[in-house]
């Protein structure tokens, strides 16, 4: 604060006043814009606030430091430390307080003149003012003055041959006898009173930090350090102190004063000010010379260091309150995170440090964020259906309905998913057929030349050979059809995968037609019948559809149109059908006429009708396209599916790398990692599952389940996964070993580490027969006893409530032999007491402390997840 560099001080009690001090003291009042718009001379500090100059005091030259009297009355009393070590009491503005008048102009003079570096009022006994002075060979550097003391020419003082200038001796305004003198032959650069005790003073001395205790001035506690400037106590944590040296800030814990708890990263330029935020815990602001940024260190989430090694984490960031260099700053005493900064040319800025926003997005869709002391919750407006349509909601519902877990009737998973998405239907039916035909192929040892069914139709038709061409008549029509159909084993398999024909050598679509009729898919059934050159059956299906309940009578009309089919090239029927078919809304009806009116061998009207299900198009292609056309068409279709992320394409790509590519674009489009995970797990072991993308989906799905607290579902998924992909099974990580011989007593049963840290459960008794094992298999010594029933470990729980229920729980693994969870042995990692899980759980329902007498361990509370409740039912 030497002349050019202003400093700033907030009034301790008037939240709207502050003082700027450089060569003089100026008192400002800060107001919001609304109140002071009319006033002239108001300085704009920010968009909302202005400052008005209230008073100037230029009575005290050579100012080195200023401290504001901490008590309410007299309100505007300031102590000014001067370059010659004198401390002068002065005030700003008028004060009618008589006490204030008495104090005004009072001077406190050290024996030997030297610069006064710092001042600090005692927060409790506000008559005490501590001053830190530069070094003098024979004098003290820390003087504590009592501002209420009078000048008294005591004997001791005269002994020192006081030669005061004539002006000083009047009115008793000069005090030369301090209350306490500390730090002889040393320099004091910074001071602060410790809130722990009124008589404790922390001083940054030359080369050390010292704590002086005024109750015993011959004692001091000190630590050698360079960081001796700007000592300041954290107002929220009274044992935490910051000090600095050059560009380095040291944080001290007074309870462990030997070395700094931590040192903040060094700044390239020397620091000028370090201040704790009074309105927010653990926020430290630092300013370096010639800088326009204030660096903030947030120690908000710092846990109290327990060991020597624990380094607290700190979030560091910078704020730039204004364009110019900052001379000094001061936190507002009560307004949260607010500060006023002043530049060397005395322009001021009112600034609020914006709080970091922490945002939490719930796995169930709601969003919440915290800013400062406010917590905001965001609710989505609009109809509930948008939430319903959201993939997260769907996945959640599907997880609860055990979607993906049906490994036998794989197609049922489509129903578990809600049964309303054609893509999923196609996917699960495809997977179902693939599974079925793979099993078929495995039973037939000879057909090893066929590619794996799971690699998709694309690969199946590539290997196609021995294709037989055939011309067939229309069923139910006498006329010779001019249609060439192709047939081979591979094409047959493809048709099977498309679901058109059942397994077996027969190429018979009748069962498929019947099933379509059951599902009232009249048009599709008609189309399939027609593609099998059975025009009569097609008409029959359409009639059935028209006559069925709520049937569309138009189907009869279509049937009539169909019955008029003629292969005459130039007939009116053909002409009208080929043009009018485009107006038909139903894609199946549309393609029927497209097929009938098309030239032989070119079926683009059917093949590129995108509204038609992929499996139908592919089946159609398998029947009517030649060996040269078919792979090209399939290739084209597959890449289109891949691009669109259409799950129907899985039929073509199978669960190959292509399939993963397709699934990738599906996941990119929908975010449905659930379907992706389950689908890919069905793939032949090892191949696709090892793909990093697949692993990523699986991990994400597991995390999602965890986030929903669907822990049981997660466990089920893991079990499901380890069955399909044995390599994913985690190795046993923890073993229970015998106290006596040290051998593992759970060698036969894989240990299952529990989620939490404090508590672990292990199935030590793998089966009912083994559950009678109460001694170590290695050395035959007894196993530990349950702390509650005092039975040896391994003994089944005799009376546990709801045994029947827990049987059902176990049922999920379809392994009745697995030990009941209640029989598992569990213990606290902290106090090492434990017992049967069932006993422990019921004990801790009513107790917080360990069941072992005289053990005060709060075992259950050590388990961070112990109090969480899963949100899914088992």
């Amino acid at each position, binding site marked *: 604060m030497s002349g050019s560099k202003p400093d700033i001080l907030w009034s301790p009690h008037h939240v709207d006043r502050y003082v700027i001090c450089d060569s003089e003291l100026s008192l400002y009042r800060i107001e919001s814009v609304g109140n002071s718009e009319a006033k002239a001379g108001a300085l704009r500090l920010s968009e909302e606030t202005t400052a008005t100059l209230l008073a100037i005091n230029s009575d005290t030259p050579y100012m080195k430091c200023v401290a504001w009297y901490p008590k309410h009355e007299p309100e505007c009393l300031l102590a000014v430390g001067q370059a010659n070590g004198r401390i002068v009491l002065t005030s700003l503005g008028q004060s009618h307080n008589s006490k204030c008048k008495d104090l005004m102009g009072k001077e406190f003079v050290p024996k*030997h*003149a030297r610069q006064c570096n710092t001042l600090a009022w005692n927060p409790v006994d506000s008559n005490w003012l501590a001053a830190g002075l*530069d070094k003098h060979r*024979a004098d003290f550097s820390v003087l504590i003055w009592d501002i209420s003391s009078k000048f008294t020419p005591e004997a*001791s003082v005269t002994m020192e041959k006081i030669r005061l200038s004539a002006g000083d001796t009047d009115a008793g305004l000069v005090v030369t006898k301090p209350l306490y003198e*500390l730090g*002889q032959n040393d320099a004091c650069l910074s001071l602060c009173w410790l809130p722990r005790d009124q008589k404790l003073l922390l001083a940054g001395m030359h080369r050390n930090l010292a704590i002086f205790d005024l109750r015993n001035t*011959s004692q001091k506690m000190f630590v050698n350090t360079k960081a001796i400037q700007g000592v300041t106590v954290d107002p929220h944590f009274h044992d935490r102190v910051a000090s600095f040296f050059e560009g380095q800030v040291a944080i001290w814990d007074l309870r462990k004063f030997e070395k700094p708890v931590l040192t903040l990263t060094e700044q390239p330029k020397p620091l000028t000010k370090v201040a704790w935020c009074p309105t927010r815990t653990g926020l430290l602001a630092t300013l370096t010379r010639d800088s326009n940024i204030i660096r903030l260190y947030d120690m908000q989430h710092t846990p109290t260091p327990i060991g020597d090694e624990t380094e607290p984490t700190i979030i560091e960031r910078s704020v730039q309150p204004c364009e110019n260099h900052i001379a000094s700053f001061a936190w507002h005493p009560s307004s949260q995170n607010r500060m006023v900064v002043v530049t060397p040319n005395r322009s001021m800025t009112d600034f609020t440090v914006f709080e970091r926003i922490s945002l939490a997005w719930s796995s169930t869709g709601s969003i919440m964020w915290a800013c400062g002391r406010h917590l905001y919750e965001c609710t989505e407006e609009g109809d509930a259906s948008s939430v319903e349509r959201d993939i997260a909601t769907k996945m959640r519902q599907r997880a609860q309905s055990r979607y993906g877990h049906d490994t036998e009737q794989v197609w049922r998973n489509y129903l578990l998913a809600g049964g309303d998405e054609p893509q999923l239907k196609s996917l699960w039916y495809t997977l179902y057929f693939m599974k079925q035909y793979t099993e078929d192929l495995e039973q037939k040892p000879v057909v090893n030349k066929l590619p794996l069914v799971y690699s998709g139709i694309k690969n199946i038709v590539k290997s196609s050979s021995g294709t037989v061409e055939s011309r067939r008549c229309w069923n139910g029509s006498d006329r010779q059809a001019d249609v060439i159909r192709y047939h081979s084993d591979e094409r047959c398999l493809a048709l099977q995968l498309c679901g058109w024909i059942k397994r077996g050598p027969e190429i018979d679509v009748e069962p498929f037609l019947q099933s379509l009729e059951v599902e009232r898919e009249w048009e599709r059934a008609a189309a399939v019948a027609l593609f099998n050159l059975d025009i009569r059956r097609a008409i029959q299906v359409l009639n059935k559809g028209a006559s069925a309940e709520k049937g569309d009578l138009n189907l009869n009309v279509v049937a009539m149109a169909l019955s008029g089919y003629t292969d005459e090239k130039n007939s009116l029927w053909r002409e009208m059908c080929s043009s009018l078919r485009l107006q038909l809304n139903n894609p199946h009806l549309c393609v029927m006429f497209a097929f009938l009116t098309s030239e032989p061998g070119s079926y683009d009207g059917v093949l590129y009708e995108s509204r038609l299900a992929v499996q139908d198009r592919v089946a159609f292609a398998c029947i009517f396209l030649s060996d040269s056309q078919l792979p090209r068409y399939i290739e084209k279709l597959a890449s289109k599916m891949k691009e669109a992320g259409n799950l129907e394409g899985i039929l073509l790509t199978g669960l190959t790398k292509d399939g993963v590519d397709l699934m990738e674009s599906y996941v990119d489009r929908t975010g449905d990692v659930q379907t992706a995970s389950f689908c890919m797990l069905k793939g032949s072991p090892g191949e696709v599952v090892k793909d990093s993308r697949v692993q990523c989906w699986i991990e994400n799905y597991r995390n999602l389940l965890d986030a929903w607290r669907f822990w049981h579902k997660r466990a089920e998924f893991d079990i499901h996964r380890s069955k399909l992909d044995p390599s994913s099974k985690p190795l046993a990580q923890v073993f229970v070993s015998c106290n006596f011989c040290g051998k593992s007593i759970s060698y036969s049963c894989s240990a299952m580490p529990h989620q939490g840290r404090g508590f672990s459960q292990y199935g030590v008794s793998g089966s009912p027969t083994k559950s009678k094992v109460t001694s170590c298999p290695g050395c035959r010594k007894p196993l530990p006893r349950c702390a509650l029933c005092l039975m040896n470990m391994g003994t089944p729980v005799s009376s546990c409530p709801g045994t029947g229920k827990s049987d059902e729980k176990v049922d999920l693994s379809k392994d009745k032999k697995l030990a009941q969870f209640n029989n598992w042995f569990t213990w606290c990692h902290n106090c090492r007491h434990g017992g049967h899980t069932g006993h422990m759980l019921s004990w801790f329902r009513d107790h917080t402390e360990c069941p072992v007498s005289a053990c005060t361990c709060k075992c259950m509370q050590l388990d961070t997840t112990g109090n969480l409740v899963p949100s899914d039912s088992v």
Partner: protein
Amino acid sequence: MELHILEHSLKVASIAKEGIQFFTHGLIKLAFLPSKTRCKFFTLTETPEDYTIIVDEEGFKGKLCFEKGAACVRVSVWLRQQLNVVSGGGSSSSSQPIGVTKIAKSVIAPLADHNISVFMLSTYQTDFILVRERDLPLVMHTLSSEFTLLRVVNGEAVAANSLGVTNGFVKPKLVQRPVIHPLSSPSNMFCVTSLDPVTLPSVATILMDIMFYSSGVKESAAPSDDLEYIRFFSFSLIEGYVSLVMDEETQKRFPLNVLFTSASGELWKMVRIGGQPLGFDECGIVAQISESLAAADIPAYYISTFKFDHALVPEENIQSVIGALRTNEGGGQ
């Protein structure tokens, strides 16, 4: 009590009066532009015989061109050691002896007993005892019993271990040390003062005038007829702290409120030790003086220069000091 061993390596040099013109450039830089040099320790003391300069190696290398006036310069290398005695700091401060008196028993006498030659420098802020670099292990050994020895490394104090070296002298019995050298006491009175380093530029011209052009000014300003008058001025800038020793007349040339005047406004008389240059090898000189002063409980500053030693004692004590020292002198012979 703590004793800090500082990290500067110092040189003590003497510049003849007539040779000062060759060095003014470097000296001004060292004295007034500390930010331009890396020098942390600089003192300049003018006596009637010569200028004594103590400067650390940085300053010596960088700024003093000794080649030019080599004839005028004698250089001796010393290592320094600062005494920073941290005592109980009780409330009985008013009568506490200060300066060299306080450390006479604990530091000066033991060093003299072990035949270690010391070079004393008192400033406004503190006392420095300079010892030869080669003597340092012995100094540490000698003082380790009384003090916590702290070595300053990069500004941070760390504990220094005594190396357990002796120079072969057995500790002699404590005997009365006679004052060997002749004493004189000039008539003018001195003040020891300091100033805010920030205000140094504003008085730089006055200081330069006093430092380098004293011979011209002296004729008019000082009573030249007074034979007992001595020309003595000392300026030091050590780790940012300024310390000045000047006589009353010189002090009047400074503007008011620039110099730190102590509340008691005390003035000091000088006792000059040595009839001919003392050299650097003789030990016990400081001890001879300081022990007598300590016995009489008289505070003192002690400033060694290249040729002679100077003790400053309170003006009212000068007669008793002279008396005590003369008695001692007699007793010794």
